[in-house]
């Protein structure tokens, strides 16, 4: 099953199981079924609960907030993650505010799904990873499945959450088969949950009795690169432990710290620019550990996109975004220090 199929099935399950669940978004009706086809089949099966909308991202989220306040469980789709800027006010000043500012007397159980990421040559306004805007916003959860997670199960969890969730999908992962179960190809896969109850997956390219040489942490679309790099480095007998959380904000650093501690070296990779990104918070938490504690000994590096627009031309896009080659190079560099 692909990442996309898993998400689509989850939407079917959610709407089938919960009569209060609703879908809203642009072009989500059949036969089109959404720009990336994640909502296919749903309007046919649940015609009264799937709403195609005008091109009004602020209102899509704003209407969903109103529905959630009044007892429904809306799931909104923003066609491209780049357009969440238009819904930033509704997410930050409305969805994330009501429960706390009304002293806990209301809930806003809302999921905003959106695909982020580049690599498809869509150019500067259709390729970004703008979930970063919402990191650390109180009372807003940012979830992002990679293809080593049960993406659909995570969406079910998002839909069951009490508060608003920004659910970040990845365009290049849509066609990827999920890598689940104990054996994900040549890689050993294991799963645990973080303090918030969301899954964290570990992938190892070495035997169970061995120790990793280096650890790499990433989320979302970066899993595509990690799986490739781990497989390649296995051949070169570089033992790599990858750790992939699904709850990006708020951050539980413990599973990442544990994985990093096993090798003493951590590479943090993210698709957006590294500066002020996810890895910054992970690094700050892990490294600010008391001197003498294992964290303080960590050798750590970060990798992200170049700090500019994401070009449309393929070669330029590759030069700006993180590639598997860049990940491998950064890992090997980290091993040398």
């Amino acid at each position, binding site marked *: 099953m692909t990442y996309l199929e898993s998400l689509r099935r989850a939407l079917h399950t959610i709407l089938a199981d919960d009569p209060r669940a*609703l879908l809203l978004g642009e072009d989500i009706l059949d036969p089109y079924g959404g720009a990336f086809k994640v909502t296919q089949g749903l309007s046919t099966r649940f015609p*009264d609960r799937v*709403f195609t*909308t*005008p091109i*009004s991202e*602020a*209102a899509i*989220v*704003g*209407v*969903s*907030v*109103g*529905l*959630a*306040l*009044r*007892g*429904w469980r*809306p799931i909104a789709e923003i066609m491209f993650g780049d357009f969440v800027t238009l819904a930033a*006010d*509704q997410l930050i*000043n*409305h969805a994330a*505010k*009501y429960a*706390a*500012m*009304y*002293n*806990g*007397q*209301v809930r806003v159980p809302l999921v905003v799904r959106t695909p982020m990421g580049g690599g498809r040559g869509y150019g500067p306004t259709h390729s970004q990873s703008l979930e970063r805007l919402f990191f650390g916003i*109180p*009372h807003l959860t940012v979830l992002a499945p990679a293809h080593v997670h049960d993406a659909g199960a995570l969406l079910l969890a998002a839909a069951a959450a009490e508060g608003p969730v920004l659910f970040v999908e990845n365009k290049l992962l849509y066609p990827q088969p999920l890598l689940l179960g104990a054996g994900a190809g040549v890689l050993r896969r294991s799963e645990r949950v973080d303090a918030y109850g969301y899954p964290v997956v570990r992938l190892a390219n070495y035997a169970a009795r061995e120790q990793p040489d280096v650890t790499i942490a990433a989320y979302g679309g970066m899993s595509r690169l990690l799986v490739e790099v781990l497989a390649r480095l296995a051949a070169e007998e570089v033992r790599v432990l990858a750790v992939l959380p699904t709850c990006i904000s708020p951050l539980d650093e413990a599973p990442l710290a544990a994985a990093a501690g096993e090798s003493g070296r951590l590479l943090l990779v993210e698709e957006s620019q590294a500066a002020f990104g996810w890895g910054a918070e992970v690094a700050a938490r892990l490294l600010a550990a008391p001197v003498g504690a294992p964290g303080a000994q960590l050798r750590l590096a970060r990798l992200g996109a170049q700090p500019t627009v994401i070009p449309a031309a393929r070669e330029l896009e590759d030069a700006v975004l993180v590639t598997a080659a860049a990940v491998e190079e950064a890992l090997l560099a980290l091993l040398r220090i």
Partner: protein
Amino acid sequence: MTDTLEHSFYAQMTLIRQTEQAFFDLYSRGLMAGTVHTSIGQEACAVGVVAALDKQRDVIFSSHRAHGHYLAYCDDVEGLVAELLGRHTGVVGGIGGTQHLHKHNLYTNGIQGGIVPNAVGAALAEKLAGSGAIVTVFVGDGTLGQGVVYESMNLAALWALPLLFVLEDNRYAQSTPSRLEHAGRLADRPRAFGIATLDLSGADAAAQEPQQALGVDEIYTAACTAVAHVRTHTAPFFLALRTYRLAPHSKGDDVRDPAELAAAWAGDPLARLAQQLAPAVCAALDAAAARRVQAAIDAALAAPPQLINAFAQRAGWSPWQPL
């Protein structure tokens, strides 16, 4: 208009007036902090519209100038006063304050325009639930500057939602007269989206001479028509009301022409309503309201200090552990 109704209108309007005047007083005595936007002069809009609603099931959204809507809706002067005084006995525990109120089916937020799509969502919620309830959203003339208001009008009309837009057109946004903010006639905007509209705003945005604010009886009558339309047709309606803010935008920040203000005070809808009633009745209602407001203030000021712990727990952090 029955006698009882007018008494009730007067009772509500004087309660709102006195509550908000008390807020100014509490500020000047240093007992209140933050900001406040009073609806002094605009009470008739709140009272006349809310009287036409079914308070058991209907839903109300409002924004920064919501005390009147709040009191007309739930009469909870105690919860409101305590909220503005920052007490944990406030309706939202002192967290929201003046601009962020919630009780039963009433919700306010201080971001201009942002509540409007929320109200659309609430209207869709009621329509889907088949509750028969309608949603009312109060907006000011200045708030029609926000794009999301038009996204919302479009959706409300497209999906035939039971949503009543009430425009309280007081011809100013903060310090800025409407003619420096808006082109065209405001009521033409909902009409362009196919929303049935009743324009009692009295003038287009460019008109200069002040006009009299609508009285509560005119507003109530119009609101009854509007509410009936929304409920019967399950379709949106836009009611544009001419009103005037007699007090500053918030506190002391008034740059309007004193002559204009004086003329508006001369047409104060509360005073006009008083002239229709027996002086003794008004005096009794005024006194009753004054007693309630004072009691609410006394109770709030006597309330124990903030329950930081309880708030922290609900908000998900511990006040005793640094981040």
